[in-house]
């Protein structure tokens, strides 16, 4: 496969997954998954609930044995070399995996000791990471008194104690409010800046776009698409610019004007009369700027402007649309087309 060849040239592979299978009775949590993560990059694994994301992370972090296939992390096999593998990874689960009854500092110190740091170093590392994750003030309080965001930050700090080469983040922001989610994103970006390789699972396209350089889309235990995030965005149609003219009567003339300009290329604008807005698909920041510039030049007053990323649903619709000919597809192709129209 050309995609894998390209990766091999781009750097060492830190995480490699081949033909991974895990069944729970009738349920195929993983049904032959292949995946590569290059060193120092962030791989986003995007998929809905039940797609097999958590199962993948649990196998990679040695919590679960696969039924078939191979998973290696920096060359260590998850089944045959679990102890060596555990030394090089950090894990932040979907549910905060810290001891809630223990103060933040004690949580980090304990993990330092479990990772064989000498007492003095374990203490220093706990102090350092609390400082870095802005938790110094809460160091002595039990983690049960922390807010959701603080707990998640403590969880990330705990994952960083052993200076892991590879970090697994299983839905790191699920259940967090938008502000806290941004905090967690910032922390993850800083970790990546330190050179950690990250495999992150998420249900949100926005999160994947913020953090990941490459994306693997999974559904029902299978990889349905993968590649550079820009490639995929192009495939699924990128962002949508939504503008509302202050004067609703301007709506249709504006749509006609933009279509005539031809900035948007092949895709055409859509008029949403219900909300009085115009939807313009955009593929790049340059395009976005050009469109806004053109509207301004025309002298049309706007009452609101926003850009929207495709939702997971939309990504799935456009991606599974490509697979319409696949024989194992259970959804009839025409039914899906009706939805996409």
């Amino acid at each position, binding site marked *: 496969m050309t995609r894998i060849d390209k990766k091999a040239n781009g750097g060492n592979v830190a995480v490699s997954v081949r033909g991974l299978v895990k069944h729970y009775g009738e349920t195929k949590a993983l049904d032959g998954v292949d995946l590569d993560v290059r060193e120092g990059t962030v791989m986003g694994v995007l998929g809905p609930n039940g797609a097999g994301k958590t199962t993948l992370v649990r196998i990679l972090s040695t919590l679960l044995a696969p039924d078939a296939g191979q998973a290696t992390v920096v060359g260590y096999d998850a089944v045959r070399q679990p102890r060596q593998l555990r030394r090089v990874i950090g894990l932040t689960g979907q549910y905060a995996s810290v001891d809630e*009854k*223990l103060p933040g500092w004690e949580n980090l110190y304990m993990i330092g*000791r479990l990772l064989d740091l000498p007492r003095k170093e374990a203490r220093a590392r706990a102090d350092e990471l609390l400082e870095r994750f802005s938790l110094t003030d809460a160091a002595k309080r039990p983690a049960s008194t922390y807010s959701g965001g603080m707990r998640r930050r403590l969880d990330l700090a705990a994952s960083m104690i052993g200076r892991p080469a590879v970090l697994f983040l299983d839905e790191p922001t699920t259940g967090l409010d938008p502000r806290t989610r941004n905090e967690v994103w910032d922390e993850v970006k800083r970790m990546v800046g330190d050179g950690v390789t990250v495999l992150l699972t998420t249900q949100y396209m926005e999160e994947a776009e913020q953090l990941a350089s490459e994306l693997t889309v999974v559904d029902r235990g299978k990889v349905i698409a993968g590649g550079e995030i820009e490639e995929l965005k192009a495939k699924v149609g990128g962002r949508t610019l939504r503008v509302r003219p202050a004067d609703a009567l301007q709506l249709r003339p504006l749509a006609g004007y933009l279509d005539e300009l031809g900035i948007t290329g092949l895709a055409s604008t859509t008029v949403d009369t219900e909300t009085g807005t115009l939807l313009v698909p955009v593929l790049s920041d340059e395009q976005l700027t050009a469109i806004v510039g053109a509207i301004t030049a025309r002298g049309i007053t706007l009452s609101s402007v926003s850009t929207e990323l495709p939702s997971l649903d939309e990504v799935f619709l456009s991606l599974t649309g490509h697979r319409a000919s696949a024989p194992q597809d259970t959804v009839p192709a025409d039914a899906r087309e009706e939805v996409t129209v």
Partner: protein
Amino acid sequence: MSAATVTPTDARIPLRGHLRHTGALIRRNLLWIRQDPESMFDALLMPVVFTLLFVYVFGGSIGQALGGGQDGYVQYVIPGMIAMMSMTLSQGVGTGFSQDFNSGVMDRFRSLPIGRGSVLFAKVSVELVRMLFATTVLMIVSVAVGFDIASWPGLFAAVGLSAVFASSIMWVFLTLGVVLKNAQSVQAMGFLVLFPLQFGSSIFAPTDSMPGWLQAFTDYNPLSTLADAARGLMVGGPVAHDLWVTLGWSVAITAVMAPVAIHKFRTKS
């Protein structure tokens, strides 16, 4: 960071590593007690309540039947209480373990390069600390109600024997903690196991007046032999047979249940 920079010497964990890990986890479990002192209430109150209950409610009539009155019954029942206490408290190890499983922290432990046994050994160690605390309370109360410690070395030997037996039975509760869904089920199941063992024994009353089929059970019930051995050690009387039978049970239970608990823990997904 490539695979080559990772030291490959870590495949096996040295004994010092196991001790370090167990130590860090013992510290964790002790901090739990500091954070939540109420968790020691059972260890504090159970010996007080049971001693007062048995000595003052049943003590008079059982003592009369035994021929020594209430004071005689105190000498009889207190060593038995040590045996009972060790059993009842070891149950806590299973419920605590079950709670760990239902929080995310167990995933963290299992993704760390530590021996699986460390997590279990730490639990057992801390539970033994709780047990020693409860035994100390029990001895203070028992002296207050008139118990006569005939032999201090005997007392320590009895407590030691109870601790050995308790640590073996804890592997049963750890297994229940891994296998059963939640702490409530562990407690309910533990109660079902403990109740017949405790009352179908010589802890509270001599077994001579029981029907033959029950005597057959009580004679081999390790709680009977533990209570009888403790009685022999603390107040005097024959010890050897009961001591060996109790130790035999402890070794057998540990040999079977410790590997089962560790295996179940290792393979739980």
